């Protein structure tokens, strides 16, 4: 099993002139450390207008900065909004290729369509059509990367023949993913031969059927790209500390704040009746998960969350491993509710004590460098 980190770049109120600066630079420091510690992916979302919840509207810029500070970690659009009203698909292909070049071929290209009225309404994008728009874009973008000259005459965008430049370093092209928050999308990912980025932050049991469906369907897929990216990621919260009690204190704060900020967004399903959004999506699944566990508020720690002492976190992650999830990607902070030093220390504890128990490559690396035992030594604020 491999591990990654995931950034929404949440900026909690009250804001001050350097709130966003601090969040961005703390996140870059986290990416830099994660790269040194052996995490293999760092994901950055693309969201627009989601005040407090996510100020990460230009992930390609964030990932470019991350590329310059790191050597090995893969840089992941998690996910790029590929709908034409948000971004012309040619612009998505261009910026992704540029990022692949400057990162020496470390790009993973996640795709998505948004689940909020906040975003879709902001770009005057018809919610009924987003699935079709996404489908058209994910079929076009790999061709833009691989064909010398590209033209398209589709339902949602068209363009005369042009050379889409630059071309990515990875050949035939970077791996493709899609954000999956419903059983239908897991199957649609598999049918198209693209990776499944499970963003519903559910429990392993809730995710089991999706993984099974994905694995079954992808065997007979018709890939939209030049190769099949048969990988399943899960997403959950991470906070590791010396004891379960201390970890739960901070982990609860993290889960609570994330869900609370998400609750203030306007989900499509809550305001705009459309068959295109029958399932609630990440933000709203989070809300129902919270309701179920904590009637008075939220912040429930649920099965499968990587919050606890190293021993507890290993146990929790083994639940995901048993499902056949290839990689767990972690939300490590939100709105800076956990002090940066604690976040960094949590990453170090994870790399030192948890990663070797689940990631064979990390175990080998640690054997080769036994002095890594001082990683967790940081004074807490």
């Amino acid at each position, binding site marked *: 099993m491999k591990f990654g980190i995931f950034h929404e770049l949440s900026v909690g109120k009250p804001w001050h002139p350097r709130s966003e600066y601090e969040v961005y630079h703390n996140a870059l420091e986290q990416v830099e450390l994660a790269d040194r510690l052996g995490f293999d992916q760092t994901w950055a979302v693309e969201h627009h207008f989601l005040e*407090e919840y996510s100020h990460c509207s230009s992930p390609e810029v964030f990932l470019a900065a991350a590329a310059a500070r790191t050597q090995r970690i893969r840089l992941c659009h998690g996910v790029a909004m590929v709908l034409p009203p948000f971004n012309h698909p040619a612009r998505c292909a261009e910026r992704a290729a540029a990022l692949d070049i400057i990162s020496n071929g470390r790009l993973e290209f996640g795709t998505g369509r948004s689940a909020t009225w906040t975003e879709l309404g902001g770009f005057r994008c018809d919610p009924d059509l987003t699935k079709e728009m996404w489908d058209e874009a994910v079929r076009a973008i790999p061709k833009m990367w691989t064909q010398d000259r590209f033209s398209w005459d589709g339902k949602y965008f068209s363009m005369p023949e042009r050379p889409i430049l630059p071309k990515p370093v990875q050949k035939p092209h970077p791996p493709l993913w899609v954000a999956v928050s419903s059983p239908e999308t897991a199957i649609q990912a598999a049918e198209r031969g693209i990776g499944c980025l499970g963003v519903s932050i559910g429990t392993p049991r809730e995710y089991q059927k999706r993984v099974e469906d994905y694995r079954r369907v992808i065997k007979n897929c018709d890939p939209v790209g030049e190769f099949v990216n048969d990988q399943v990621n899960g997403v959950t919260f991470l906070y590791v500390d010396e004891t379960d009690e201390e970890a739960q204190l901070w982990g609860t704060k993290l889960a609570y704040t994330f*869900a609370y900020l998400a609750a203030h967004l306007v989900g499509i399903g809550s305001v705009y009746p459309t068959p295109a959004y029958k399932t609630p999506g990440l933000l709203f699944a989070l809300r129902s998960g919270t309701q179920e566990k904590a009637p008075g508020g939220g912040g429930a720690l649920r099965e499968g969350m990587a919050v606890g002492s190293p021993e507890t976190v290993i146990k929790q992650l083994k639940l995901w491993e048993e499902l056949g999830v290839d990689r767990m990607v972690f939300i490590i902070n939100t709105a800076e509710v956990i002090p940066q030093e604690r976040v960094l220390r949590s990453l170090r504890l994870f790399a030192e004590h948890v990663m070797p128990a689940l990631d064979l490559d990390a175990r080998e690396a640690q054997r080769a460098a036994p002095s890594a035992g001082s990683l967790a030594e940081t004074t807490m604020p």
Partner: protein
Amino acid sequence: MPDQGRLTEQRIPHTSPAIAPLYPPPPWKLPGVRVVKLMYETDVEPLLAWLPPKLTRSSPPYAVITIAELPETPIGPFSLAAQYLGCRAGFFIRALTLQAVTDSSMAMTALREVWGYPCRLGTVGLASHGPLKTATVGEGGAPLAALEITGAEPIEGDLVRFDPVLNLRVFPSLEEGKRHDLVQMVQIDPDYAVQTARRGKGTVEFPASGAESPWAVLPVRNIISATYCEMDTELPLARFVMPY
């Protein structure tokens, strides 16, 4: 020791509205309701100005107008129009009633006393002509709001949702100069089964907003959705949520 009286709650005099109300107690079953629902983005400041401190706004801020015709109720047919603030109570999506108008004085009394609706007497109209739906609200001869849905196409009924409603129950104060003794926030969680639903392009106008029923206080900045439903629903017993 002096003898104490023995009056129990069950034998409180018949003038008590709880023992002898002018209307049947909840739940009220409401079959065959026709309702136009319009959701729109509005401005932050007026929304916050009307939202109690324990509630929070969404992003973007939005308001909801529903105009309903209720042909079968325990007090006979009546119509009800309401304007709500879209909001959050902790993690939960709620609709706080800002103002309401009904065309029945009995309904107005019950809606105020039992469910805490800030309800006034006026005129409410709803008309359906295939894909065209129109609805109006008025008070004292002046139109307050006019809604129109054009090109309404059928959609699955279970896609339409009606969020739990919050109301403030206000009791007249016995203290001079004090407006009310107690404000309770109550919640109404109606069950509903939508039989038919249509979604179309919505418009709303606030032709003449009186000082006491200023529907234009929440200006329309961007229409989100407009739906028309025929459904069975109810007005259940409101439940206490929190003190103001």
